[in-house]
């Protein structure tokens, strides 16, 4: 008497139970679960952290670039024959200022003098600082700021007054100007009236002591030929202006004029950071791979150890597919736990470090979501082989343990 139909005898595992059964293994072996998830989470944390930090730092850099402006061009002598001693013609600043697309131009002149904190410092210890003469608009042209005091103006620049760059201030031991501070330039004591913030677009000036142009001529015999002309250009006309700058600055020897764009260096730095990021991402991927292998390893061991359980489940009516699903789910659960942990660690590391650097915290969505999906994929791949082995095991063999 063959009564029962196929439907009524088929074995069936509910979807929710697939998850429940898959979670039962990790739940019963918490330490092992934590350790194997840790492997994956290190990889995911590395990926998320690297992406988050590089995005945050890059955005900080780009913010800086845009706040400093990419429309600054520096014009200086050098490049052609006899580059060493050459200087721009004394008319350079005036002619450059007359270019219609130039909004702002300032120059600095070299001053042949050394600077010391006082007369007791040995002559050789110049601290690699240079003395330059600056026009009164320099800070404005460079979008610079003063940390303390004020910059040179029409009146102060005619007399022995100095403004020191950020590095120069440090090397001269000047932290504030709470009381009148003098430094020795050449043979004369000069009052320091301001300390500059860093100039990311003109790092040379950080190591310089600036005095007024008139004072430089009167007291230090400085020449009229500017060393560098800093030029602000209308945004859309950067390339065309760049083309005419050499001839404008030095019509006789345009080939001896070098025009550069300091923001290019910062952009290059951003690009270099990208290269470094790629390297670290590679390392993170390797860590993730190792984590995945760890999960595969644990699963292979689990299948060997739990032959009895596999046999029992087959005797309770589990099909091969049910066993396969169970171990696959288990592997995915392990790596998803790792993925969640990794995303949390990666995001918090980014948050802590970026905050400590004063950067805006940027967690790229692709990194967080990708890290999570990556973990699922890693788990599925790592679990595939062990799950197939578990499913292949004959129930009689599994029960013989």
């Amino acid at each position, binding site marked *: *008497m*063959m009564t029962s139909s196929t439907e009524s005898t088929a074995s069936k*595992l509910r979807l929710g139970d697939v998850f429940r*059964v898959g979670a039962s293994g990790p739940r*019963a072996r918490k330490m092992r679960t934590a350790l194997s998830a840790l492997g994956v989470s290190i990889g995911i944390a590395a990926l998320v952290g690297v992406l988050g930090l590089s995005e945050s730092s890059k955005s900080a850099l780009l913010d800086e670039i845009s706040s400093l402006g990419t429309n600054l061009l520096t014009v200086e002598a050098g490049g052609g024959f006899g580059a060493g001693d050459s200087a721009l013609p004394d008319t350079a600043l005036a002619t450059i200022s007359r270019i219609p697309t130039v909004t702002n131009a300032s120059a600095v002149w070299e001053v042949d003098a050394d600077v010391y904190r006082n007369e007791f410092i040995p002559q050789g210890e110049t601290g690699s600082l240079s003395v330059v003469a600056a026009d009164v608009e320099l800070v404005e042209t460079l979008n610079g700021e003063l940390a303390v005091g004020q910059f040179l103006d029409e009146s102060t620049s005619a007399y022995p007054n100095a403004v020191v760059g950020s590095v120069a201030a440090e090397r001269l031991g000047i932290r504030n100007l709470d009381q009148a501070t003098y430094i020795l330039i050449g043979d004369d004591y000069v009052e320091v009236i301001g300390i500059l913030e860093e100039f990311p677009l003109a790092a040379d000036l950080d190591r310089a002591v600036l005095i007024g142009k008139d004072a430089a001529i009167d007291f230090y015999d400085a020449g009229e030929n500017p060393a560098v002309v800093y030029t602000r250009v209308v945004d859309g006309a950067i390339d065309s202006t760049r083309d005419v700058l050499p001839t404008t600055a030095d019509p006789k020897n345009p080939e001896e004029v070098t025009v550069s764009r300091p923001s290019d260096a910062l952009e290059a730095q951003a690009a270099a950071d990208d290269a470094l990021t790629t390297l670290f991402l590679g390392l993170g991927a390797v860590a993730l791979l190792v984590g995945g292998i760890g999960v595969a390893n644990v699963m292979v061991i689990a299948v060997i150890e739990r032959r009895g359980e596999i046999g029992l489940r087959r005797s*309770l*009516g*589990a099909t091969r597919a049910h066993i396969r699903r169970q171990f696959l789910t288990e592997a995915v659960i392990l790596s998803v736990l790792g993925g969640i942990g990794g995303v949390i660690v990666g995001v918090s590391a980014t948050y802590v470090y970026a905050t400590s650097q004063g950067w805006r915290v940027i967690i790229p969505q692709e990194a967080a979501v990708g890290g999570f999906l990556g973990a699922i994929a890693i788990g599925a791949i790592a679990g595939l082989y062990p799950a197939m082995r578990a499913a292949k095991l004959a129930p*009689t063999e599994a029960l013989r*343990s």
Partner: protein
Amino acid sequence: MTAALELHNVTKEFPGEPPVRALDDVSLRIDHGELVAVVGPSGSGKSTLLNVMGTLDRPTHGIVSVDGIDTAARTDDEVAGIRARKIGFVFQQFFLLPGMSAIENVSNGLLYQGVPPRERAARSIEALERVGLGHRLQHPPNHLSGGERQRVAVARALVHSPSFVLADEPTGNLDSKSTEAVMKLIHDLHSEGTTIVVITHDTAIAESLPRQVAVHDGALASDSARRDRAVVAT
């Protein structure tokens, strides 16, 4: 009436040179409500017979019918479904899953039938109460004595109301006191109508059961039921 389990001329050979014939033309009928001992020394083919009766292994020749369903005509997945609904297993090593409470272990007996979790839990509690473990519902296996563990395993084998329960050396890992308790449970369940086949090498246990089937060298050496019938016939 349909038999709970019926074997017709079952032969099982394992490949090799020469092939090993573990079961040789075994025919056996177990009716609903019976309590049967399958007894034999180790190497007699007892384990192979258990595997074939439990549909864990297919015979080389012959027919195995569970509750009237010929398993030879069914796919592996369908046979798994037959195990899920019609057969309950009790093993010498208990095979309880660590880290799971008694209820969860028993409810695994309903898992592969697709019974919803809530109903599984309710029926598991019932089964545990039936084996006298109503006070141990939330205990994991490592908090239970050997006898209690085997009773959880018996509850798991009963929870889906199978056609028959196959108990493989159910007292093999138990001390004498627990053995007594488990055997009493088996007798009680039998008197409530459950069909049970106990596979054992222990002749004392076998003799305490109403019907004994002796296996020797892969063949049925004797069957007390047939002898009774033979006696009745003469």
